């Protein structure tokens, strides 16, 4: 379903993700846990490209979501026999010009220089090959996102729309459903969570738990293949956590594929069939809930679990 390959994410000098790879399979429920600042949320947000990764690839099924890296693509590599020579030339030029090695050796800088020079030397062939492989593999991120529902920590219901408006906007606007169909779908989902009487109210009148449950069914209205939960209960009052977790549990039982970033260890253990423990921008340990919670191998995991359990 989702493949994450060697993802890096930098915010300025802050290296948040340092090469994360993981695979989310169909029907799998993956919980991501870890100390704050370990990159859990960033990893989740990279999956639907709300954060653009600084490097690496994200695949949804067999479509690539991240921009093509021309130098990792076979056709391009074949064309770029001159890569090494070019790079050496550039390095020599820069050294002659008295530029610091640090400026030049930054990976991105290399690629830009390389890309421009390569384009100049290889000319049309390079551009055509690049375009062809983009077309072949990369798909419109907006199309991909339709299949990946996302639930946010702060619910993010559209404040200017009623509950029904929130649920109908995307299906109708994207011409996936007619107005009537979208309304029927929305009402069916609202009935399911017992909030059909709230159809015409604005989000500001709802409780946190109600907002989050509506946010979840809003994502469901798009019929996604996978749901991404970004700390869905962290902003809730304690007495409302239960109702939201119940709904997520229900969806899990129905076989929905989901990725959940959470601080609710008990919940992660109960619902997930695989748990990833992240620390310092890397996946430090992963395994079934039993393995990870009962017999953590990594000392960082042991330390973390000791602190939170």
């Amino acid at each position: 379903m989702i493949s994450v390959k060697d993802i890096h994410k930098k915010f300025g000098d802050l290296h948040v993700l340092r090469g994360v790879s993981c695979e989310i399979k169909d029907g799998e429920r993956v919980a991501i846990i870890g100390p704050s600042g370990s990159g859990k949320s960033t990893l989740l947000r990279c999956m639907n490209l709300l954060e653009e990764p600084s490097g690496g690839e994200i695949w949804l099924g067999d479509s690539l979501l991240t921009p093509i890296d021309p130098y990792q693509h076979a056709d391009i590599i074949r064309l770029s026999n001159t890569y090494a020579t070019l790079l050496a030339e550039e390095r020599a030029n820069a050294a002659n010009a008295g530029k610091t090695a640090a400026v030049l050796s930054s990976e991105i800088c290399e690629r830009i220089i390389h890309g421009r020079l390569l384009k100049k030397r290889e000319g049309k062939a390079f551009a055509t090959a690049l375009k062809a492989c983009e077309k072949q593999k990369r798909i419109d991120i907006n199309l991909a996102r339709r299949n990946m529902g996302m639930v946010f920590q702060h619910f993010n219901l559209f404040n200017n729309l009623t509950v029904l408006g929130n649920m109908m906007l995307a299906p109708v606007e994207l011409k996936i459903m007619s107005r009537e169909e979208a309304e029927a779908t929305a009402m069916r989902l609202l009935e399911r969570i017992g909030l059909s009487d709230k159809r015409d109210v604005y989000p500001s009148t709802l409780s946190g738990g109600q907002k989050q449950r509506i946010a979840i069914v809003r994502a469901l209205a798009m019929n996604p293949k996978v749901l991404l939960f970004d700390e869905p209960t962290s902003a809730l009052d304690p007495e409302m956590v239960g109702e939201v977790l119940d709904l997520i549990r229900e969806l899990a039982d129905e076989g929905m594929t989901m990725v959940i970033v959470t601080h609710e260890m008990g919940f992660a253990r109960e619902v997930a069939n695989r748990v990833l423990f992240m620390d310092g921008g890397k996946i430090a340990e992963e395994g079934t809930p039993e393995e990870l919670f009962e017999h953590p191998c990594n000392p960082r995991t042991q330390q973390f679990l000791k602190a939170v359990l």
Partner: protein
Amino acid sequence: MNFFDKLIELFSSAKYMESMFKGLGATVLISAAAAVLGLILGTIVAFVTIAKDSRAMKLPKLLCNIYITVIRGTPMALQLFIMVYIIFAIKGFPEMITAILAFGINSGAYVAENIRAGILSVDIGQTEAGRALGLPGRTTMLRIVVPQAIKNVIPAIGNELIALIKETSIVSMVSVYDLTMAAKDIGSGKNLASYLVPMLVAALFYLVIVYLLTFVIKMIERRLRAGDKR
């Protein structure tokens, strides 16, 4: 003659009232036209300044930032003089149009900043939620962010329009016959020979326009806020 006699004379003399209303007409025309120009200009500039950084937007962004900085950093009166005596110093070019342009361009810079602030005040989570559902950036902006931004922006735009109406009084300095000019004219020696009465009446006129505008803005605001109870 005392104050009340002058007041009666002002209101009963067709000549004076004609001058007064002629001035009022000019003030309203300049304000309204400049407001429309300012809103259009301000909206465009605001959207350019908040656009994502890209190579194509670099120059437009730079120009917009220079525009905002220069206009907000120099006095309105000076901008008006430059427009009238330098840029549009063409013989026979109507000063009214020049004044509208000067005020519209001035107002645009303030409106742009108000709109920019309004759009930025909408929680980024709203945009993220829209994008995460697969909505394109433009749709998210138009259907989710802008409607919420408008609510936040209306009071500031209202302030700007009020300031604009009153600021138009300086067109009398470049001999456009507006409300302030009318008051000066009527009050001068060859007419009523009293500045007090026409000035007070002109002030009253400004007050009434501003009050009406405030009323309309409050009404719009109330209607827009119907959705959210706080």
